[in-house]
């Protein structure tokens, strides 16, 4: 372990270590961030949801988008797997189907960054009940 000999050293170390904790700090206030949920049921995984999830994790970080990527169960759109749900801060969430790497890239560049919708949207035609209300 190298010694920390100046305040600047400490700041550098802090910024370096911050990444390791980011996942937890983000969780304190997920509403202010982009939330991406990847459907990871058997059908999703079989269609490559795992790769998509890794892609989002890596690329959102690399493109400096403050986001929380989590996995969720089957959303019911097994015909359109892999599916993901994206929620921008203060907006209703949008579900995208048939997400391959190309579409994932579009979603980040267009929808997440500029709010422009891209192909593959699955209209949500049901309502979920909220047990907390």
């Amino acid at each position, binding site marked *: 372990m190298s010694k920390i*000999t100046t305040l600047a050293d400490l700041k550098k170390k802090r910024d370096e270590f911050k990444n390791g904790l980011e996942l937890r700090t983000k969780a304190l206030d997920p509403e202010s961030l982009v939330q991406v949920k990847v459907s990871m049921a058997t059908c999703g995984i079989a269609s490559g949801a795992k790769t998509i999830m890794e892609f989002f994790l890596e690329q959102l970080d690399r493109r400096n988008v403050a986001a929380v990527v989590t996995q969720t169960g089957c959303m019911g759109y097994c015909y359109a797997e892999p599916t993901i749900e994206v929620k921008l801060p203060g907006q209703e969430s949008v579900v995208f189907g048939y997400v391959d790497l190309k579409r994932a890239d579009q979603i980040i560049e267009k929808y997440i960054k500029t709010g422009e919708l891209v192909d593959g949207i699955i209209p949500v035609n049901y309502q979920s009940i909220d047990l907390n209300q």
Partner: protein
Amino acid sequence: MSKYSMHLLVCGGTGCHAAESDAIVCNLRDELEANGLMDSVQVILTGCFGFCEKGPIVKVMPDNTFYVKVKPEDAQSIVAEHVIKGRKVERLLYRDPVTKEAVTDSKNMGFYKKQMRIALRNCGFINPENIDEYIARDGYMALGKVLSEMTPEQVIKLVKDSGQRGRGGGGFSTGLKWELARRSVSDEKYVVCNADEGDPGAFMDRSVLEGDPHSVLEAMAICGYAIGAQNGLIYIRAEYPLAIERLKIAIDQAREYGLLGKDIFGTGFSFDISLRYGAGAFVCGEETALIHSMEGLRGEPTVKPPFPAESGFRNKPTNVNNVETFASIPAIILKGAEWYSSIGTEKSKGTKVFALAGKINNVGLIEVPMGTTLREVIFEIGGGIKNGKKFKGVQTGGPSGGCLTEKHLDTPIDFDNLIAAGSMMGSGAMIVLDEDDCMVSMAKFFLEFTVEESCGKCAPCRIGNKRLHELLGQICDGKGSLADLDRLRNMSLVIKDTSLCGLGQTSPNPVLSMLDNFRDEYVSHVTDRKCPAGQCRSLMEYVVLADNCVGCTACARVCPVNAITGERKEIHYINPDICIKCGACMDKCKFDAIYIR
């Protein structure tokens, strides 16, 4: 470095530790390994989450899922269901005690809603055995700021302006204490951290040390710089092995980074910390007794002055602060005096950590702004009284404090209000009592503790408390008189006025406040020879209810002293002269034919 997509935080406080949280961590890792997920999911053992009632706790980040009462064998479901399939494990979720609905996000739990965490800011969030996580949370930045940008006088002024008062119980201004130690001229000075947490029901300091040891180390170094000391000592009781272990790791890590030791941040300031173990005597929480114990002498207090700030450890100027006081200091330095003094009440600033214990639903550790009412603490955060019983009182400040009742529920909690109500802040233990608790027995329980813990140096405490205890015993046995109640009060006042140290000066507080607030109950013990709460054995009598008794002889057969007589199918009789009041007959009776009179 691979990127983790999920963190599993497992509570590693003493409570959860005892409930096998280590095994949970092992099992989680094994499960992840078996599923090839070690690179994407990280398991971290953290400090106390505070919600000890429902421990062990596993928290899943980033979705904030809060699993309670997790057993080692649940690791498989958590990994298979939550981690792999993204489905929350319903049966392990916390359920709202009122609505009975599962709460999926810990932010929606009543227990956490009203809390504000300053001293506990990192507890349950970081791995206490990894200094890097502390640094990532701005750890040691306050020390860096102080050493490179501030003079010792400026540090003291900032702490003074923040209005922080010592969290050990006395409530003396931290900044003023530092100033006094700074003014003393000496070649050597000491910073001491008082981690001798001894009151029944208190576990605030232990949890801070177990969950975030670096915050205390950092603050001690800041204090060293402010008062001009190079040596720090932590006086901790040997009964806290986990806290000691984590402190040792923390000190080693800080030394390796050069954050403790010589020439810190290249500023020429040197400071190092070592541990001193106490054998667990309550009186050693008093600062002069603590210092004597560290010197290898008997843990007995001495008269102040001289104050430790003038002549303390090895007769050198010494500044003693409590763990929680220290833990808040880095935050105060970084966020400023104004920020801290904007929290709390007029004369008590900031937040206070309380340990909730006794007959309360959510036993655990909480931190709230000063000025929060008892009602909010007990009924909103604490979730109310166990088993739907009625609230009777709450003992604050441990055996040195007093018992507050229903009429105090809406009093904002701060140092001065508690004293005005006949209690005190103490270190922050809150023992909640319900309708089944007898106030005479309770006072006797606390006195028993002080009698045992009195060091015996001064007569009022040594002899007086013993007599108080005897008197309370007589009242519980139904041998007291009304005159005894006056005797209790008079003796209490004398002990308070004439004892040498804080132990004796406060030990009669439970008696006085319970006598004031529950006088009827005391009177009924001495005049009617009745214990309204049904706790005092000598005042109880087991009686057969003739209407219900069918003469099955079950009670007579179970009685260990053959106090029950009666033929089959005839009404039985309990001989009160032989009965030892064990209650076995009442438990056995299927017809509710035995009751307590």
